């Protein structure tokens, strides 16, 4: 009986709770999709020149787990973190201000929820202090 209860909790209740919260993380569905993403980081300096920066330059200041996924994010990656980047896009763009003497930073996230879906483009723009 104990095994059945454990099975119900692990296989049904936890995933259902996770779906109910709207994330699905405990349903482990992030590994059952082909979500892919790419980041493009552009910084404009005080003289108006535009710099194409590697997203890995944002590494300082982000949580370690997210930092790892910035490496190589300048190309499309099928890592299950596209929505995590999307939720943090303005904050990440603001971190770009610390990478040089820039007047503004633009960070673009391109996501494809699956292989057939059109690209979803989200762009964050911040002015640097």
């Amino acid at each position, binding site marked *: 009986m104990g095994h059945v209860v454990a099975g119900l909790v692990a296989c049904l209740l936890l995933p259902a709770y996770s779906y109910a*919260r709207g994330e699905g993380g405990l349903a482990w569905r992030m590994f059952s999709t082909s979500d892919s993403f790419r980041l493009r980081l552009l910084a404009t300096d005080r003289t108006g020149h535009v710099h*194409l920066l590697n997203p890995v330059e944002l590494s300082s200041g982000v949580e370690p787990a997210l930092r790892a996924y910035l490496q190589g994010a300048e190309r499309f990656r099928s890592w299950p973190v596209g929505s995590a980047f999307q939720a943090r896009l303005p904050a990440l763009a603001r971190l770009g201000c610390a990478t040089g003497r820039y007047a503004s930073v633009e960070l673009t996230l391109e996501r494809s929820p699956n292989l057939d879906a059109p690209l979803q483009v989200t762009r964050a723009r911040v002015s640097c202090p």
Partner: protein
Amino acid sequence: MVALTGALLFALRIGGCQANSEGVVPNTAGFPNAGTAGASGGGGGMAGTGGKPGTSGMAGTGGVAGTGGVASAADCERAAALVVGCGPADTCAGNSIVHAYYCDQTSCTGSVATRQSICGDNATCVKGSCYARTVTPTKTCEIPLDCGLPPSVCAGRELLSFSDPSCDEGQCHWKQLLNICSTKDFGAVGCGSGECATHSMQTSGPQIGMPSADPMQPPTPPAAACAKASDCSLPPPSCFRSQAPGNLANDALVSYVNPACTAGACVWQIDLTQCGTSCAAGVCAADGAAGTAP
């Protein structure tokens, strides 16, 4: 009951596989953020000059074997095949790295077993690490943005990335960033195929961890059917508050731009423009600018 549970689980997995991942925020409590502690045992060998990853993690100097190189030939054979273990600093022999590991991985002293790995044609061995020769990027240009970003390459155990291109006399040059793969944060064990190879690619060992959950996503515009892009009117602007490092609120104005008609449905690009202070009802409060699409 068990059969019922299995059937429901199967249905759940099918649903998960077919589900569109829109709106899914990965991770959550099941994947600890800092789950990499001890993954590579600290920073030894980070810059390619010190010992190899795992040196401090495997310490155990109070082991039972004592010192004096009493390890057997079999121990040395096993040590020579190690990827992570304790040993003296790697060195170079020609264009090859000489990896050295103590035969006795318990006491981390005594006799040493070695193994060589060739750096390859596009890399050179310096102080026990392979570094990519930066002849890789050769590209002509008129302006820096023509250059793009070349793919990252492995430089020994670390990852060499390229950034901020400049165009000098028609040739691209990039700033080179050496990313340390062998850190606790990344939980990586080295570099392979142009990316840090993490423990999560293995069947055992610490996982790299997933980003913490963040249920707040930029608001999605209402669904709209279309035959052509001009059928797609711009949804009104709205506000988005994301969490910045340090839990500082980060209000942004959300605009929907560049409409397109894809498979009979309107699709917009989302622009998030930082507000000076706060955003309410599609307007930045700081400057009072109306939230109109650029």
